[in-house]
């Protein structure tokens, strides 16, 4: 069971890194936007290589199976990313509003 989970984590980690590097090569994303995903992959890789850590954490925290601990960690990371995205969207929203106002006022002045 744990061996299968380990291989899945390993594969997902490598796919994530590959997808991010591909996007940077294509100039689709800024390098700073990819940092989170590299850390994400690193955590998955860490879990895959040291399953004892997952097992130890699940015991200490009282999880029924180590897989549950992995799921919870993933959900946590997704929420963190959701928060970052919310902040990004909010800042884009504010900037867009200011930009529209600046253009509109400039048009009226001319």
């Amino acid at each position: 069971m744990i061996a299968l989970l380990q291989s899945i984590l390993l594969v997902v980690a490598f796919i994530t890194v590959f997808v991010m590097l591909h996007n940077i090569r294509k100039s689709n994303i800024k390098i700073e936007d990819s940092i989170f995903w590299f850390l994400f992959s690193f955590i998955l890789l860490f879990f895959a290589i040291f399953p004892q850590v997952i097992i130890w954490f699940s015991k200490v925290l009282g999880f029924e199976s180590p897989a549950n601990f992995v799921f919870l960690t993933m959900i946590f990371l997704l929420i963190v990313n959701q928060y970052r995205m919310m902040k990004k969207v909010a800042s884009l929203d504010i900037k867009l509003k200011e930009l529209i106002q600046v253009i509109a006022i400039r048009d009226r002045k001319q």
Partner: protein
Amino acid sequence: MTVQRQSNTLIIIPAYNEEESIFAVVDHLRKHYPQFDYVIINDGSKDRTSEICHYHDFNIIDLPVNLGLSGAVQTGFKYANQLGYEHALQFDADGQHLPEYIELMVSELEQGNDCVIGSRFVTQARNRSLRMLGNTLISWTIKLTTGQTISDPTSGMRIFNKELIKTFATQVNYTPEPDTISYLLRQGKKVKEVQVTMQERQAGQSYLTLTRSLQYMLHMFISILLVQSFRKRSL
């Protein structure tokens, strides 16, 4: 565009809330270094930076919203590219950089270098502080991945040739940061450092808080060690 190019060299001065220092810095440049053109990129400052520049009839571009340092500097490169400048130099608005060294940097560039960095530590040793530790670590990382020594990778005083002006103006991941320098080296570009002296910032707040510094270091490590090895050689 009604602006005329009078020199081959453009000094790009990104400014965010620099009302205390901007006049002194630009006035000094205009009076003593008229052989260079300059442009101030006001990055949506909330203080009187823009007002002061317009009052004194400085050459200024006002960004209506804050883009951050990379976006502001890139605006300068776009301007340089459109007006056809041969060299573009990034220059701080807070009085840290001294214009005495521009001539030397330009002449090094004309001798066939693609980028010249005004470095604090070519001949002089680093002082030991937390800030310099970051500088040293980035320097090691660049040495490890490119085999070349950049003693002051975080120096913001850099000058680029025409080809790089165009690249910086049009490409996405060419930020004015050390990871871009390492990428230039990987692509076989000639990067040279000249010894300069820098002053303490004359006014204003440093952008780098502890959290930001740690974030910055993490960003630089991942970028230099991992990302840059997989990027296309586009130059």
